[in-house]
């Protein structure tokens, strides 16, 4: 399973996707669930699919796995068109949210089910089962029934069942969502380690954007059956394609506010209104990019991550972009302290050091870091 050769290949091959979904649509009657979805991943990729509940993530996964018939479009796995192929013949393994273990079989039989179907001789089957059990540290459980396992153990068995066959592609549908918070973090690390070790190709559905950020080599953000953005976690985080993505990824969410943007030489001058007759905030972005430079002056929506609004302690270098702000609410969260400020007609969140000594109602200087500012069209919400 661990295969160095494959790892080398991976860097060489780049235009040969392990999975390519092209213009996939899926409707139930008049209800269009997936609309013209196209996505591709390469061998070794860890693609995470995120989006709000009901946006069609499981449906897309079902289409890729062959559990759901597609309405139009096509799906290729390793260069072969599998749009109308049996799930059995796609060489895919899937880990379900509910684990979907066979309750009437022991853990060992669960893991070996795929091999039993393929009529692998018993001896070889047992060998592979024990290898996988060792990898997942579940050797002592092999003779138990699924009902006798804890949530985390079931999770491992479900993964074991997927791993044992060494398939071309793994599908995970919210595999950690039934675990408690602590176990979820442990399993997350474990899945990441497994991915690195096996260099498997994985598509992973989750609600949880932290899971997405930590696991993915590539993230797909979906909304209402339409792909909003595809990119590395950094790209998604730093340059969200639209306000929806900006808002959805990151916790606390990106601050989106209305501002007047005009060009002042090569810099963009950003004016943000404040309440209660306070002076408006004037910020300067030294590298606004072509999109902004060529635009007529006017109101835009800008996006600033909470960490772009911070206390002096962290960033004294940029002292000129610094303003006194009234902290509406202060929420200490251990390593960080979050503060809510009223700016540009909305509430924005600033992320300060965990050890700053501030209270609700204080007015303190806040530094604005515009190096990662995003501009959005106020009407369409698209990135400029």
């Amino acid at each position: 399973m661990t295969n160095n050769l494959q790892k080398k290949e991976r860097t060489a091959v780049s235009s040969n996707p392990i999975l390519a979904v092209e213009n996939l649509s899926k409707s139930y009657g008049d209800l269009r669930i997936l609309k013209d979805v196209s996505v591709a991943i390469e061998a070794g990729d860890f693609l995470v699919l995120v989006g709000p509940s009901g946006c069609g993530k499981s449906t897309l996964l079902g289409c890729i796995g062959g559990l759901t018939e597609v309405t139009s479009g096509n799906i290729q796995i390793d260069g072969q068109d599998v749009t109308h192929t049996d799930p059995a013949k796609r060489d895919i393994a899937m880990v379900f949210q509910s684990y979907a273990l066979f309750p009437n079989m022991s853990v060992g039989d669960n893991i070996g089910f795929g091999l039993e179907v393929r009529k692998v001789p018993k001896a070889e089957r047992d060998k592979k089962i024990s290898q996988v059990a060792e990898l997942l540290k579940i050797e002592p459980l092999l003779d138990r029934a699924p009902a006798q396992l804890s949530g985390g153990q079931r999770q491992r068995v479900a993964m074991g069942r997927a791993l044992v066959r060494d398939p071309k592609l793994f599908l995970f549908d919210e595999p950690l969502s039934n675990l408690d918070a602590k176990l979820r973090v442990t399993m997350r690390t474990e899945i990441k380690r497994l991915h690195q070790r096996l260099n498997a190709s994985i598509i992973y559905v989750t609600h949880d954007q932290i899971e997405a950020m930590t696991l993915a080599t590539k993230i797909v953000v979906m909304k209402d059956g339409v792909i909003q953005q595809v990119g590395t976690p950094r790209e998604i985080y730093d340059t969200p394609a639209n306000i929806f993505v900006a808002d959805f990824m990151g916790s606390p969410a990106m601050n989106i506010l209305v501002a007047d943007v005009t060009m002042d030489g090569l810099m963009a001058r950003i004016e943000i209104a404040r309440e209660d007759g306070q002076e408006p905030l004037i910020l300067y972005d030294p590298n606004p990019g072509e999109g902004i430079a060529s635009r007529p002056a006017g109101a835009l929506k800008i996006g600033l991550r909470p960490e772009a609004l911070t206390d002096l302690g962290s960033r004294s270098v940029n002292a000129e972009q610094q303003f006194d702000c009234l902290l509406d609410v202060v929420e200490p969260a251990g390593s960080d302290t979050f503060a809510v400020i009223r700016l540009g007609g909305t509430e924005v969140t600033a992320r300060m050091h965990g050890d700053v000594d501030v209270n609700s109602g204080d007015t303190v200087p806040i530094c604005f870091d515009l190096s990662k500012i995003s501009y959005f069209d106020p009407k369409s919400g698209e990135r400029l």
Partner: protein
Amino acid sequence: MHRSLFASFALYSAALLLTLFTLAPLVWLVLMSISSPNDLTSVPLNWWPTEVDLSRYGHLVDLNNGAGHRFLAALRNSLLTAGGATLIALIVAVPAAYAFSRRGASLALLFVFLATIMMPPITYVLPLYEIFGGLGALNKTTTLIIVYSAMLLPFATWLMKSNIDVLPVEIEQAAFMEGASTAFTLRRVVLPLALPAIAATCMLSFLVAWDEFFYALIFTSDLSAKTLPVAIADFSAGRVTDYGVIASVGVLATLPPAILAICFQRFIVSGLAAGSVKG
């Protein structure tokens, strides 16, 4: 809320009356089967047997006795017919139920299935009689098994379908993902999960077949295939002078379904409710 004395009285009287109405015919049947012929023919009746007479039961399980021979042959035929038909009906019903539950087969077709058993058997019986007659298959247990399995099939399909509906679909999907065929998944995954439903379906089907009279009356003519209901009808129509014999055959024929009904009441009542109310 506290009941008034009068309400309590009315309630317990009603309960007593219901108990009497329900049990009296059965108790009398049992008493007849153990009373001496003299007790049974006195006017007015001797309600309580002067002495317990179990000889009829002894005769009925004795192959060398005429009545016993007929009874045991009919018992064998009934067991074979009801058992065989239940088995075939289940084997045919499970895949069909799966098609209705998981493969989007039209429910209208299921309603057509069910409509076929709601029709009076009198609509089917003559052509069947002629066909089986032409094949020389009258008076054969196999023939009854075939007819009964068609009679049991729609209900069994319906019951299995509603039970498969509530099984978690992801477990089957997991099997498909692992490469299993539908047949393999049915055998290794669905059937074990549906075992309680299968047991309930088998039991109800068996009881229906055990009870069937009309087809058996027409398609069988002697001891080689006659089932218990037909045999009992014969007993009661024949020139039996001892009514206790008829009663004891009735008691024996009632025992298996009565025991099943008491032991598996929950199963049966919910099965009946599913079959009749949910359609």
